[in-house]
């Protein structure tokens, strides 16, 4: 039996076979004989999550536009399927042609969140690819990109090349390099060496030496002599998004996926400068797609997919420079075709009454607002430039326009936080509730629902809080319970919060150095995988892995760093400069805000990049 038939044999035995059948509408099939480069794109989580990832859609499209390359998708199989594959000797395979991942030329892996790292190792194992980069003599080069690549060290021993920044151009440079390297017949190492100079944003960890201080901190990360690798690796930057490739077709999954709709990226980057937010730093500067281009893409995608919803995506969609016009045009254009327009990540201060009305015409979902912190003092510390008045104005507008459901997002454990800030969250919820009841009964929709959701703050690299300690588990639990007891007093208010264990691990791997890779390997041996899924989170497996590796997780999560410590990612430049991050940290500690740089340059360092911030 061939591999495809052997996979089919497993289908009656698994939940949701549609995760593995491939063949979805608009998936790309090519003749393997007619392409030079086979690229496997692995999203290290289950199909429904991976198929909701915009980056994969963009890169899949841009690669498959080339005649010389075939990009196929790969997902980590759900544990039921994984077990069957192991029992039946079925290797990790691609969705499109069901080719073993091991026989591809390049394996791209996207790093969206730290808690998918075990799935990466598990997937390499299933593919039969040696875990350690140094042990690979053949098979695909493993290339990792995405936000977590900005602290590559915890995965460094497993990866051939990290690719930093925007992928639309650099991924083509990889294909060109691969063809040229293959034709040259040079050894494997030569591909890595050439990537450094021929592919923008490339970091090749095997070309660097690390030294540690007696106290366990990093002393230095230096390129090996003669390697040609740079001291500081700059990210790749695509300045013109209007001209950049964007999918004109999207794969239409059979089963339901998380974002089962057209995703339209209206701009990239955010200049609000919220100090906790890694995305707000590493995706700088703001680059908008023109309205004409967006309307053109939207039309093509509606025709090509049959989806009945378009989601306008970005880090802060309310900041799009002509949002009211765009929303208006979109609604006009697609209303007759019953296509709904939705705006996620709504920012309250950018909330325009007209936009509210436009989106309501097609759909009225819960209004999502993210004040992030409960008091003005703490909001100033994190530079969330939102006041209580902004919030009250936004919810009052929404309630009087017929909304009755509001979601409020907060974080617990922010630097300088006290119990008073937690009580401030309950106070805000009380005031939001009051806004609703202040509107005459006949003018508001019935059934008020306020959801307060509080996640645990994880300090991230390349943010002004990269030096901060994560608050200890005991304090976090105390504050979660304090908030719960306060919110329990309010009718119509739900409270959602997360377990501390996962956030603690996330904090370790977000700011880990190369040594924590050993913990990852041991955790996978102990059966850890799908860690962000509560049903699979295996705390005992992790505890044992840390103990066996002799690594104290608290060193990485709960330790305050001094501003002159060499951080494990100090050789990576994400766009903003170290000087800016330090300045922002100090301003945070003084409770001073920094305005959005659209109102005047704040000297974040982006101007060091050619063509950025014109």
């Amino acid at each position, binding site marked *: 039996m061939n591999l495809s038939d052997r996979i089919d044999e497993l289908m009656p035995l698994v939940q949701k076979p549609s995760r593995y059948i491939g063949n979805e509408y608009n998936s790309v099939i090519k003749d393997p004989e007619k392409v030079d480069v086979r690229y496997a794109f692995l999203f290290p989580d289950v199909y429904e999550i991976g198929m909701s990832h915009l980056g994969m859609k963009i890169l899949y499209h841009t690669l498959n536009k080339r005649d010389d390359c075939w990009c196929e998708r790969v997902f980590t199989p759900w544990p039921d399927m994984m077990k069957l594959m192991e029992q039946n000797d079925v290797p990790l395979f691609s969705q499109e042609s069901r080719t073993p991942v091991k026989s591809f030329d390049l394996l791209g892996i996207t790093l969206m969140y730290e808690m998918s790292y075990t799935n990466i190792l598990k997937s390499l194992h299933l593919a039969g690819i040696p875990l350690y980069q140094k042990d690979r003599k053949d098979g695909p080069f493993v290339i990792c990109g995405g936000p977590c690549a900005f602290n590559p060290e915890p995965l460094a021993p497993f990866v051939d090349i990290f690719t930093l920044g925007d992928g639309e151009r650099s991924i083509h440079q990889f294909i060109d390099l691969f063809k040229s390297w293959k034709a040259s017949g040079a050894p494997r190492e030569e591909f890595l060496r050439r990537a450094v100079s021929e592919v923008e944003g490339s970091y090749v960890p095997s070309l660097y030496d690390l030294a540690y201080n007696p106290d366990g901190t990093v002393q230095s990360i230096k390129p090996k002599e003669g390697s040609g690798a740079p001291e500081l690796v700059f990210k790749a930057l695509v300045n013109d998004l209007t001209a950049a490739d964007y999918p004109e077709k999207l794969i239409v999954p059979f089963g339901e996926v998380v974002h089962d709709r057209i995703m339209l990226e209206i701009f990239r980057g955010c200049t609000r400068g919220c100090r906790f937010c890694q995305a707000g730093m590493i995706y700088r500067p703001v680059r908008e797609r023109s309205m004409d281009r967006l309307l053109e893409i939207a039309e093509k995608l509606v025709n090509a997919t*049959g989806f009945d919803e378009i989601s306008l995506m970005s880090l802060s969609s309310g900041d799009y420079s002509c949002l009211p016009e765009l929303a208006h045009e979109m609604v006009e254009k697609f209303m007759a075709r019953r296509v709904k327009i939705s705006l996620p990540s709504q920012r309250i201060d950018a909330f325009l009454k007209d936009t509210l009305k436009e989106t309501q015409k097609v759909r009225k979902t819960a209004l999502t607002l993210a004040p992030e912190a409960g008091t003005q003092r703490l909001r100033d510390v994190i530079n969330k430039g939102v006041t209580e008045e902004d919030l009250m104005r936004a919810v009052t507008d929404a309630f009087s326009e017929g909304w009755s459901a509001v979601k409020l997002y907060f974080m617990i454990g922010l630097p300088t936080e006290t119990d008073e800030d937690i009580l401030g969250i309950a106070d805000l919820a009380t005031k939001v509730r009051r806004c609703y009841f202040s509107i005459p009964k006949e003018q508001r929709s019935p059934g008020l629902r306020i959801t307060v959701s509080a996640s645990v703050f994880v300090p991230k690299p390349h943010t002004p809080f990269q030096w901060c300690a994560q608050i200890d588990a005991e304090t976090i639990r105390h504050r979660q319970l304090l908030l719960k007891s306060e919110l329990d007093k309010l009718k119509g208010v739900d409270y959602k919060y997360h377990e501390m264990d996962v956030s603690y691990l996330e904090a370790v791997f977000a700011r880990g150095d190369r040594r924590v890779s050993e913990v990852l390997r041991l955790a996978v041996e102990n059966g850890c995988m799908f860690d962000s899924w509560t049903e699979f989170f295996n705390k005992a497996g992790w505890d044992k892995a840390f103990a066996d590796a002799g690594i104290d997780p608290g060193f990485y999560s709960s330790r305050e760093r001094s501003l002159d410590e060499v951080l494990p990612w100090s050789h990576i430049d994400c766009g903003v400069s170290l000087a800016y991050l330090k300045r922002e940290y100090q301003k945070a500690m003084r409770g001073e805000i920094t305005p959005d740089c659209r109102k005047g340059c704040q000297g974040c360092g982006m101007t060091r990049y050619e063509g950025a911030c014109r």
Partner: protein
Amino acid sequence: MKLVYVYGKEGRMRFVSHLDLQRFLQRALNRTCLPIAFSKGFNPHPILSIAGALAMGYESDYEVFEVKIEGTVDKSTALETMKNALPEDMPIKQVIFRDDTFPSMMSLVKMADYEITPRDSLPELQSAASAFMRTESFMGLRKTKSGEKEIDVRKLCLKLEMQNGVILTRLMLTEQDTLKPDVLMHSLCTLAGIDDVSFRAKRTGLLGVDRYGAVKLITELQL
């Protein structure tokens, strides 16, 4: 006006569940430029119905869905645009027009024909098949939402013969009386005194009964 399409479900499409297929067809209809009629209400969707849900894992040469349209469309447009909106392993074979007042295809289904290809144990199944058809009654269990229900497998099997290693059979398919190929195969294996044999099944027709009592494909029924 209703458009009634006959289509196949082949290859890997057999692993697409009924619920997923419904959503998939809705999107396919959105991709056509047909003047589809939409339901009223907050989340309008095409007025679409699939006749006789096919269990996951089975292929089919003859599946039927119908969709209501507003206004008119010519036959070749109806056929071509639907073909273009579907993948190769879901081939559109035919389209027919029916008035809005014509009963739903779903309500016409009384029985279905299947081709079942067992992987092995052919001689045992051959003799079990003959013995099965000679008995008057053979009890088996059908899984339902609420648990298991005892059914007379023999009475729900209207035809059964084996040719060249393939079992050709006609099974009841109504709300009250339904027999699925897996239950039939389990019965045959029990009768043969062997473990369950793995098999592939393909539906080859959905059938109804006309006013003269003749059994016909549901798309050929004139009422």
